[in-house]
């Protein structure tokens, strides 16, 4: 369906209603964005608006009070929120996506998280600074630092990415859930972009994680975890790790739109030093036209891939390596297009834009940071897709 909706839910908002609610947040988060950046965290009011509005529940199972809505809904909400504040969209997307990922874990893990608290939020993290796990009886033991925990300020759990040693050598990538009582937050997020996400690290000291809170992502990609998760809705058949879920490209499109908004607002009313309206400069007109077209093309591409993913989920087939490689390629390319759009607009801000609270410059910093996320890395995903296009075996183990 063009509206991206899945099965009708009783009582909750539909796709259009949720996206309208997201539009209602755009100006609010924009007005808070400069302060949030200074604080290196979102305002509590922003988190509460996302929580109370049901946004985090967009991909949570209906059984626990979730909305089970499509990847498209998640994408479009992120675009609207990101238009006001990239960091707010990033936190929305990351927490909402974790609800989708935990939906693929065992039923018992889902109960652990949601049975007593359907407002529980999860962040995630990656062992970029060397966190390690070892196998023990009945699970794993984790030690060290896990980083990039976007949403950690608001999360009750962390769904860590872990590399579990295999008996015969090598490692198997898993998601592993730990409650916040099991880790300590380290305030090490001093990034020049997406500052307000507060994507700090967590440190674990000899923490045991039981097997049932672990999700083998290769199994999830193959659809082998659906039975145990007891979530049979179409969105859960096309898991986030397939590249179908636009966790990062949604906020990126929003940031680019926010940058374009700022330029259009500014130039519509500005004269150059000779007193000529900036809006009459042909070069400025071409810049806003190309930026606008790039952003809309990126958005259309992501919407189309979301719709295709939903169709696949509805007919119940499993994703193929081709599906996944092209979704990842297009996802990264949407990022390339949006960064290009912002770079095209950049000269129009002029020296007057060189101030800390400029909406455009914040979007510029944010989008360059956001596209560093490995799922947005064109250099990697271009090659994976080309290998498929040219009949080679994919070299990326996540393919």
């Amino acid at each position, binding site marked *: 369906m063009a509206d991206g909706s899945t099965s009708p839910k009783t009582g909750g908002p539909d796709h259009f209603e949720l996206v309208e609610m997201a539009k209602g947040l755009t100006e609010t988060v924009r007005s808070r964005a400069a302060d949030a950046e200074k604080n290196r965290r979102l305002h509590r009011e922003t988190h509460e608006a996302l929580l109370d509005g049901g946004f985090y529940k967009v991909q949570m199972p209906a059984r626990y009070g979730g909305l089970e809505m499509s990847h498209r809904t998640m994408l479009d909400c992120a675009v609207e929120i990101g238009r006001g504040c990239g960091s707010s969209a990033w936190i929305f997307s990351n927490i909402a996506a974790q609800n989708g990922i935990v939906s693929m874990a065992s039923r018992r893990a889902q109960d652990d998280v949601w049975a007593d608290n359907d407002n529980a939020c999860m962040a995630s993290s990656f062992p970029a600074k060397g966190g390690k796990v070892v196998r023990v009886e009945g699970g794993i033991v984790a030690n060290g630092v896990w980083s990039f925990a976007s949403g950690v300020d608001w999360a009750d759990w962390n769904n860590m990415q872990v590399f579990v040693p295999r008996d015969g050598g090598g490692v198997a990538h898993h998601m592993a859930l730990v409650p916040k009582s099991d880790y300590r937050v380290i305030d090490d997020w001093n990034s020049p972009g997406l500052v307000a996400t507060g994507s700090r690290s967590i440190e674990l000291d000899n923490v045991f994680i039981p097997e049932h809170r672990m999700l083998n992502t290769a199994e999830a990609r193959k659809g082998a975890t659906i039975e145990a998760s007891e979530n049979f809705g179409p969105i859960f058949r096309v898991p986030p790790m397939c590249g179908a879920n636009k966790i990062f490209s949604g906020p990126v499109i929003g940031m680019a739109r926010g940058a374009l908004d700022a330029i259009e607002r500014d130039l519509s009313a500005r004269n150059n030093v000779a007193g000529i309206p900036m809006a*009459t400069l042909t070069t400025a007109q071409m810049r806003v*036209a190309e930026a606008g077209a790039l952003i*809309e*093309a990126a958005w259309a591409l992501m919407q189309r891939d979301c719709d295709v993913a939903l169709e696949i989920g509805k007919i119940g087939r499993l994703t193929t390596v081709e599906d996944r490689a092209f979704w990842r390629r*297009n996802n990264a390319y949407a990022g390339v297009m949006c960064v290009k759009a912002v770079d095209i607009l950049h000269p129009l801000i002029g020296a007057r834009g060189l101030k800390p609270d400029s909406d455009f410059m914040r979007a510029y910093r944010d989008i360059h940071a956001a596209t560093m996320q490995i799922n947005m890395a064109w250099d990697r995903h271009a*090659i994976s897709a*080309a290998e498929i*296009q*040219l009949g080679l075996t994919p070299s990326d183990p996540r393919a």
Partner: protein
Amino acid sequence: MVDRARDMIPVLRARARDAELDRAVPRETFEQFAEEGFFRIHQPERFGGFGWDIGMMVRLGAELGQGCGSSCWIFSNLAVQNWILGMNRPEAQEDVWGSDPLALVASSFPTQGGKVERAEGGLIANGLWSFASGVDFADWNNMQVFVPSESGDGPPEHRFALVPKSDYEIVDDWFSPGLAGTGSRSIRLDNVFIPEHRTVPSTKLMGGPSPGSAINPGALYRVPPLTLGTKVFAAPALGIAKGALALIEDDLSGRNTVGNAPMAELPTAQVRVAEAGAEIDAAEALLLKDCSDAMAIAEAGGVPVLDDRARWRRNNAFAVQLCVRAVERLNPLVGARGLTPENDFLRMFRDVHAASLQITVSWDIQSVNAGRIRFGLPSLDPRV
């Protein structure tokens, strides 16, 4: 129908070189298209057409263009005129389709100085009208004309004006290096009277009810052809780019360099095919999104505002840019071995560049106007 279009790709490709040399789409191709009903996708149902959404032109064009850009161009240009005629005055529709619902219409533009003047009950046309894509197969021509203002000092009024083929002679002046097979020749008119009811001002076709809505109530006939209908040029560009990518993928998959390294393993080649693929996917998604947005507005009974129309025109031109960039990106992979007159990729390279010169998809022109409108300045083109 999309499947059947896809099935035709190999045969269209096999005939494409001859079409180029002949400067005409082969009659058997035209007849196959007619038999499949391709030209009738947007024709009103009351005259036996399908009245399908405008996105269907993009979906069919994306297939047919992979085989032969020129054949695809003839498909889209004849199909779009059936849509535009569905928006025309009911009497004009009756004149064309009343006795022959399979009648086809080409269009033309007075770049070589064709002129009309006002006359009692209609217009008089004299001179040359050019770019009549589909003229070899058309029974009528829906000429673009600029009617002098009644007072004589105002701007001329842009209209479409229908003439039967008995009213013009075809001038064989199509010697283009790209889209050669379209045979987009000129027509010459000598003192031809065109009754008023066969003319329609383009300002009546800006979205919302058209003159044809009186007999064709569907949403399709409330969508503005001059901004959304420019898919007629973008759809072939999309098909051509897809065909060019498929050729390169096939070729590289089995080819080694002079140093005997598999070409497919060269990272630079990989980045080229990946980026071209993403550009083409983005172009297709953008074109289809605009079609569904426009249809959604029309189905809800709404009228698209200037910002919508300007955005569609801009996006359409940008989609063609993406296709051109994709083909240019792939071009170095052809290698010197490809430098032959019959090379399929290089024909596609010529064709996509020719397609991109059409004024409504010309990025230089459309981007400036779209930017102006975003800044709240008046449109430079009254037809947006």
